């Protein structure tokens, strides 16, 4: 909008993905020298095997797991699909434990990432019953409803730890305990939580937990799945002995080594960053509240990711706001992504009871390690102008000359 000064660039979409940490970048460049296939017995292979196992150690320690409990996969989505698929894998003896060939079902929530919801829908097609537990207006699981659903024989529960759109954090420990009391296995999609919150699988007592490197300043294309020692398992991708036969395919060694470095850096930076982001979030929310009328914040007021702000602006469409902000050098996201072929308002906001009209006027801003208070001041200033403009144009009429 301002064509005189060079536009400042502010990236506020850390929940979508993060820039690679400079230290991780160095590690990747160094690791590029090592090309051996980690399955090979010769020296180049052994070298890379060693680097991968070192990374596995770091990644496991980061969530208080043992290295054997971690398998590396291609993405958070693959980790989630792997777990959901356990419920209907007829080829495998272990799946008996997770419910196939029985009348048990899966429970998941209405606000999960599409990779969980669609994997669950696919299980439904295969004859597995799927129940969806609802959430309250802040996006918290409805405990009574959950308790009721658990009463029916349940094989597996999959509930995300922190929501990508509204940032709401669930009490996973409690949800997990309740599932175990009814004999169900518990999985949590912790893609948005790991690296932002302290995650300790021993304390949570989860059976499965998914996370991803590119959300924590690592590269894209590598995720990890924690499988509690002794928990039922069946490979999703078959045909190789890699990852102890649990995930076939030559390891993404560069990605895995980088993942190890990424968690190492998270360990150093996370606590301080949490405080900083919490302050920035207050600053951003206060700025919006003070300068822009008719707004509503979505998500939980306290139990929410430090860097995530989801806000609805009445009388403005999210897509238009996004476009205007992008023109001004600010990158945010909306729930309704037309380019992906859907006009539907965000299923997460709808699940929290936000009316469709307000869902369409919502944007998500997610901050991270490079976000500064100057950025936030700039965003508030720009956003104020953009919302005013967007609201104006939807009410203005361009002259008509009737006879």
């Amino acid at each position, binding site marked *: *909008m301002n*064509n005189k000064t060079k536009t400042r660039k502010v990236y506020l979409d850390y929940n979508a993905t993060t820039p690679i940490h400079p230290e991780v970048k160095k590690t990747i460049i160094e690791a590029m020298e090592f090309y051996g296939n980690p399955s090979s017995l010769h020296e180049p292979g052994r070298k890379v095997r060693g680097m991968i196992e070192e990374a596995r150690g770091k990644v496991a320690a980061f969530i208080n797991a043992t290295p054997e409990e971690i398998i590396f996969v291609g993405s958070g989505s693959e980790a989630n699909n792997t777990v959901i698929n356990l419920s209907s894998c007829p080829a495998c003896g272990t799946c008996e434990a997770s419910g196939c060939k029985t009348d048990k079902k899966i429970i998941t929530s209405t606000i999960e990432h599409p990779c969980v919801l669609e994997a669950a829908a696919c299980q439904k097609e295969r004859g597995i019953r799927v129940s969806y537990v609802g959430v309250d207006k802040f996006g918290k699981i409805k405990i009574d409803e959950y308790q009721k659903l658990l009463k029916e024989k349940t094989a597996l529960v999959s509930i995300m730890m922190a929501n990508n759109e509204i940032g709401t954090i669930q009490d996973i420990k409690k949800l997990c305990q309740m599932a175990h009391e009814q004999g169900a296995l518990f999985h949590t999609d912790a893609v948005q939580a790991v690296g932002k919150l302290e995650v300790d699988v021993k304390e949570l007592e989860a059976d499965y937990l998914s996370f991803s490197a590119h959300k924590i300043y690592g590269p894209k294309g590598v995720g990890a799945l924690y499988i509690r020692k002794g928990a039922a398992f069946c490979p999703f991708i078959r045909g190789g002995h890699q990852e102890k036969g649990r995930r076939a395919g030559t390891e993404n060694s560069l990605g895995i080594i980088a993942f190890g470095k990424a968690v190492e850096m998270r360990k150093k930076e996370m606590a301080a960053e949490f405080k900083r982001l919490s302050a920035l979030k207050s600053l951003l929310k206060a700025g919006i509240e003070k300068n822009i009328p008719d707004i509503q914040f979505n998500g939980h007021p306290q139990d929410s990711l430090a860097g995530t702000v989801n806000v609805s602006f009445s009388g403005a*469409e999210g*897509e*238009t706001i996004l*476009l*205007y902000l*992008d*023109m001004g050098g600010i990158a945010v996201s909306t729930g*309704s992504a*037309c*380019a992906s*072929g*859907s*006009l539907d308002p965000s299923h997460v906001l709808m699940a929290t009871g936000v009316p469709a009209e307000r869902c369409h006027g919502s944007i998500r801003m997610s901050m991270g390690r490079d976000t500064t208070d100057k950025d936030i001041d700039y965003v508030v200033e720009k956003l104020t102008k953009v919302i005013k*403009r*967007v609201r*104006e*144009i*939807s009410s*203005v009429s*361009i*002259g*008509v*000359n*009737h*006879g």
Partner: protein
Amino acid sequence: MSNKKNKKVMVAMSGGVDSSVAAALLKDQGYEVIGLTMCFNLPDAKTGKPACCGVQAIADAKRVADILGIRHYVLNFGQELQKKVVADFVKQYSLGLTPNPCVRCNELIKFDSLLKKALGLGMDYLATGHYARIEKTAGKYFLKKAKDKKKDQSYFLYRLTQEKLKRLLFPLGELTKDKVRQLARIYKLPVSEKQDSQEICFIPGTYQEFLKSELKGKFFPGLIKDTSGKVLGTHQGIPFYTIGQRDKLGIACGYPVYVLKINSNKNELVVGKKEETLKSKFLVQDIIYPGAVLKKKTRLMVRIRHLSPQASAWVKPIGKKSEVTFKKPVFAITPGQSAVFYKKDAVVGGGIIEEVLQ
């Protein structure tokens, strides 16, 4: 010409060859160009139709934008299309009229909602790949026919007012379709051989099937009569017929019959011989004048459907309406369609045909 470097233009990119070339030309002329694809969230027709607005169209537009090095966005206008164009389309048919949804979409969506968004974004202009020209004469902007008379789309654009025209660019107005394809190849655009879209974009199959599902339970079979009132047969429901239609009437009476009139009050069709479809006088309502409002009876050239030959007529303003009288009778004047008034190549007004008088 000299200060285009500072001018910003949004190009509505459908992913087709026309709007892609329009964007390329503007970029070459020195404008700061951003591309925007309107997403209408239409059913992804397995038949390969419609040829625009789908996920493939968005991907094509993005590829072209990448090649040109311009920003590209997608905005969703699905609900607006439904509310302002599709609903009206269905309603008009149910009343026995033959609407023109492209005229409405241009007036209410492309050159209203989208134009507002472009201007709000600080754009100086909105551009499309339409075949038409805009010329400024004596301080007024006029919409004129395209140089390529076979492709001319001015009929669909006549509802543009001064305020809109001065903010629009139609870079293809001086070009032929062949030339546009040639340019697409020169610019190495991957859409250079893409087929033209012809159909109504929100209708996946035939319009009869579409109306049948949209109007479920709201149409009834009725009588087909000749002009003397004699019953010749029955029809499926008036939404499925249009003036001048000859096929699918299911009547054999020794000579070809045409729909002359759709009588929605009585749920009747009146049919007759071809010469009976020739009429010369009709009433036009909901008139738009892009420049000066017509005050007195004037001889103009009038076109009553897209790419039909225009014909000489008297246009006489009567209150907010106009009475049009062709010099010679013309085939199938159809209520619901637009009548566009031209003076030479320039559009001077137009409206919706309300009623055929004689």
